[in-house]
């Protein structure tokens, strides 16, 4: 089982992101379960959602406490929420930011998790460019596909266009593709730096 926890704020599509991720996995023939951290969500308040992906029936109903990947949609949560609690020692971290881990003061993550599993992605900027609104969720799913390989970019794009009709869906799918490429690029830079 692969478990994902998504952190963001009310209004950023945190719950929708988990749902779309589960649909993408489902479309690829896997079992998936997405659910929000149940609460009275308000715009701007910290929100958490979860997605489990497996090849067998998912029976558990507990919140995801030991995720394999954490997606952070809103970087301002860093000092407010224990974002990486329970994250697997070989887990993945994907943060929506145009800054680096060092600039965010998160260099300590390099000691806790494999370096290639840690990426940042300027998903808000990508969304602004492609969608015209600062909603990073769809773009981050493209980045997630690249980072973890749990789902294909095509499945993500299809799930996005299934969820958002018409041009909005197409633009969000384009944002996902751009974020996918951005992560590929970042991973290439990393391995090049490693080789040097």
């Amino acid at each position: 089982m692969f478990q994902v926890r998504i952190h963001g704020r009310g209004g950023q599509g945190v719950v929708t992101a988990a749902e779309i991720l589960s649909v993408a996995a489902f479309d690829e023939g896997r079992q998936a379960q997405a659910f929000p951290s149940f609460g009275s969500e308000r715009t701007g308040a910290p929100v958490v959602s979860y997605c489990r992906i497996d090849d067998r029936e998912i029976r558990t109903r507990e919140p995801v406490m030991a995720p394999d990947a954490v997606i952070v949609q809103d970087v301002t949560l860093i000092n407010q929420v224990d974002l990486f609690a329970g994250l697997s020692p070989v887990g993945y971290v994907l943060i929506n930011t145009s800054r680096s881990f060092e600039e965010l003061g998160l260099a300590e993550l390099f000691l806790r998790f494999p370096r290639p599993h840690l990426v940042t992605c300027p998903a808000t900027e990508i969304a602004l460019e492609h969608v015209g609104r600062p909603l990073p969720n769809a773009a981050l799913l493209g980045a997630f596909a690249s980072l973890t390989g749990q789902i294909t970019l095509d499945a993500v794009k299809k799930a996005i266009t299934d969820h958002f009709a018409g041009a909005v869906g197409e633009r969000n799918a384009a944002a996902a593709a751009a974020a996918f490429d951005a992560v590929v690029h970042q991973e290439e830079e990393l391995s090049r730096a490693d080789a040097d």
Partner: protein
Amino acid sequence: MLTQIEGSRAIAETVALCRPEVVCAYPISPQTHIIEAVGVMVKEGRLAPCEFINVESEFAAMSVALGASAAGARAYTATASQGLLFMMEAVYNAAGLGLPVVMTLANRAIGAPINIWNDHSDAMAVRDSGWIQLFAETNQEAADLHVQAFRLAEELSVPVMVCMDGFILTHAVEGVDLLDQATVDAFLPPYDPRQVLDPANPVSIGAMVGPEAFQEVRYLAHLRQLDALHRIPAIAEEFFGATGRRSGGLVHSYRTEDADTIVVAMGSVLGTIKDAVDIRRDAGERIGVVGITSFRPFPAQAVRAALAGASQVVVLEKAFSIGHGGVLATDISMALQGSGCVVREVVAGLGGRPITRLSLEKLFYKAAQGELEELLFLDLEVDVVERERERMRLERRSGPSAENVLRDLGARSEGPGR
């Protein structure tokens, strides 16, 4: 068709396939998504003929539903928690009048203190109302139970409540095999009311009944529920024949063969329990699970049979009778009377407290060691409770307990998922 879909939407789609003619509801979390989706289908004409009636309260919702049912319409509504309490008088009336309304109960805790999260307190509050109460383990079963519920309700002229865990199921997106219209139409014939308000053939429904007949009327209601004990498994079997799916029925057993300890529970927590049981099985413990699908009528005989080989039964429930203990546990104890089987009560998950596999594993280990107390509150923060007790002992004006406890907890760190 197998679809990755939110539980609430799966229910709405399935309810629509059942062709309700009147839907009336008042929104309340976590039921809202169901009713919104049904409302959209009526508005778009996808569910027709059907009248969607916006009412001003839950009391009106159930009153309209039973009025519609008495006029011969297939009626549906949904609610939760305080909403159920607000419609309580009409809930009893629907059962007392024998009107086959179907209602989804998106199980949620009851205040005070106000809490929107899941437990089974609301269902327990109407336990004795005369409604049939069926509990769903998954969204698939919740959807399937609605089709069976209309069939059962209308056959027996008894209202049926499908209980599904609020948020945990209603807001979970997972694979649900949605039925098609032809299958549902073949399974669920048009509503043929046993009693109907018809100007051409006038009758009174709801007359005053004095001491000379009230007991007989109530006993008749009891007999109808006993009839349901036969019809529920028969309808589930027929549903299996039509769809190939094992949904509904009275009880479900999992790995109970040769089990010394059997855990009994209702609703979605059964999934987490099964995972924990698999792990304890791997560790060599002889443990199994029995899920109760039909809580009312209570299938005492089926429960006895399902628990026959066990020396210890652990009843884990998301509600309790304050000042007494487990509600389901009491029923289970009654069913096991004279069997010599030990019954342990575990109250868990109140007000949405996550029931984790790890906690369950520890609980089952303790059970296997024979160290379980008679009544246990899973993951209870004992120090917080003791602190408040001490405060109450020391000063008269100790203040409201809920706020005191929150303040104490606020001093501790808050992690995600809480």
